[in-house]
């Protein structure tokens, strides 16, 4: 079981408040992703839950029990670090067995669990190697192995994929999601990469400067961002944000339209924007055009079919889909 509840949790480093009082509920078995730009306090929040940092004020409950002042090892949580934090002088087997050895578990039981974890993570052939002899992805799996043998109430991941190259990252993303389905344990995952958040999470927590901007499923955040920050942060490429007269037409201070919700049309007309094509990014299936001189914003990004061929400097006509325009007021909050 792993239901984690934060009640008015606050963290200050001497004078600086990193996390103002914050409430959050994480249900058992959920895959929660904390996402936000660097320095937004997401890692600090994870470390507070882990117990590696002391909370300044507030309560952390794990499965209903007050865990605020329980030492990290006794909280029943396992953590995977960004640098993997493997013990370099121990073999993979000893690394994975370390938490069990510290728990003074029976040797036969240790062996059984290590073998089990190794087979789940495809590490059986590497058990007698040192971490230094493994590739980045394998080290990552050892770190996960060390976490799963403890059969914790929840897993904490602190940007675990940021040291891997792009291709490996996609693979490990799948593996972690797969592992979550298999173990059905609560996982809390910290990342600055919104693609990781969107693809893995059951629930995303968007953080900015220690504040929770929005909590919701990936599609809720995509479809109904609560404010401009979430609108700009979730989705790739970023949502186009337009202010001024065009926004006033929709009765809003700012309107947002995602690149995939704008159609390229043949001719100018009512409600059609025109501009000049700047940089085009050809992905094969899709092409992203960066449009200038629309009179709306500095650049408008548009997704078009990969077959649309327009060159740098061509004139383009765009028609936004009226039903998916997001409207925000002067404070940046969503108007519904």
């Amino acid at each position, binding site marked *: 079981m792993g239901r984690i509840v934060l009640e008015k949790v606050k963290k200050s480093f001497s004078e600086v408040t990193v996390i103002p009082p914050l409430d959050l509920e994480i249900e058992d078995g959920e895959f929660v992703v904390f996402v936000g730009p660097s320095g937004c306090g997401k890692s600090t929040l994870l470390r507070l839950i882990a117990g590696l940092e002391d909370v300044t004020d507030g309560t952390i409950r794990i499965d209903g029990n007050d865990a605020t002042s329980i030492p*990290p*090892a006794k909280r029943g949580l*396992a*953590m995977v*670090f960004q640098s993997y934090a493997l*013990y370099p002088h*121990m073999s993979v087997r000893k690394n994975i067995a370390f938490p069990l050895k510290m728990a003074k578990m029976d040797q036969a039981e240790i062996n059984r669990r290590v073998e089990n974890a190794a087979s789940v993570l495809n590490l059986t052939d590497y058990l007698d190697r040192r971490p230094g002899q493994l590739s980045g992805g394998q080290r990552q799996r050892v770190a996960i192995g*060390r976490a799963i043998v403890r059969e914790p109430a929840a897993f904490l991941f602190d940007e675990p994929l940021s040291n891997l190259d792009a291709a490996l990252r996609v693979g490990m993303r799948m593996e972690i999601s797969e592992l979550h389905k298999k173990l059905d344990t609560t996982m809390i995952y910290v990342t600055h990469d919104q693609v990781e958040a969107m693809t893995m999470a059951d629930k995303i927590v968007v953080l900015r400067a220690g504040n929770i901007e929005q909590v919701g499923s990936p599609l809720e955040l995509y479809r109904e961002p609560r404010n401009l920050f979430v609108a700009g942060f979730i989705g790739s490429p970023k949502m186009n944000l337009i202010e001024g007269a065009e926004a006033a037409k929709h009765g809003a201070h700012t309107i947002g339209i995602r690149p995939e919700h704008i159609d390229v049309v043949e001719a100018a007309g009512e409600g059609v924007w025109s501009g000049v094509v700047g940089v085009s990014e050809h992905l094969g299936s899709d092409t992203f055009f960066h449009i200038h001189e629309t009179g709306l914003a500095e650049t408008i990004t548009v997704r078009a079919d990969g077959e649309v061929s327009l060159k740098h400097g061509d004139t383009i006509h765009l028609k936004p889909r009226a039903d998916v325009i997001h409207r925000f007021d002067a404070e940046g909050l969503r108007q519904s």
Partner: protein
Amino acid sequence: MATQHSRSAARLMMAPAVVLLLGWMLVPLSMTLWFSFRKFLPLRGGDQGFVGFDNYVRFISSSSFWPAVQTTLVIVLGVLIITIVFGVLLAMLLDQPIWGQGIVRILIIAPFFVMPTVSALVWKNIFMDPVNGLLAHLWRAFGADPVVWLTDVPVYSIVMILSWQWLPFATLILLTAIQSLDGEQLEASEMDGAGFLSRFIYIILPHLSRAITIVILIQTIFLLSIFAEIFVTTGGAFGTRTLTYLIFQRVLESQNVGLGSAGGVYAIILANIVAIFLMRIVGKNLDA
């Protein structure tokens, strides 16, 4: 450095340094070897020709040889154990964030900058003097009879002086090693349920093993050749004669260059045996 031309140019430019170093090493070595086979008593008839292995046999069969070897080993091992145990503890202490860290570190390292002769004199006269020494005053303050350090426990006194000198060095090397320990490893072990002692045994000590071997290697090389500390304090009396000191006595006090040179050759052999062992250990440790 790929082409034939640049390679020979490099050799040419390295030549002066290589020749100088070789000369520096080879000339004294061959002179020592040369004298060790001759009967050479500068004040009693000078160089009196070859005597074969006579000097070697006499040096080793002398009643002071084995005690000198034993003293050397006791001093080297004693200083190594003290400096490494206390060095690790001090390094861990200094790694903690404290107020005035910079000054404390400089103070800890200061003894290393004191010349051996000076530190030996300071210890002998200020600390260990049985009448006016600080330690004697301390003993008397508790109503005990002052220890006559350099007469009653001369070898341990010298071990103490040397440890005081070399502790800063060990601390410094071990401190830099401890600072390079990845903080996430300690946090990971904390989450894995390791208490302070387990963290020390399983994480910190293995991380320090390389630095410890380096400290052992470097200190052994220097400790085998200590001289000033013995010369200034006991003058080799009361069983504090090390191999180095014995050679000094043979050459300068007995004025027997041949016998001393033979002792020098033994010392070279001994140092090389130690070096081979250490290189093996260090080599194994540095590979890992």
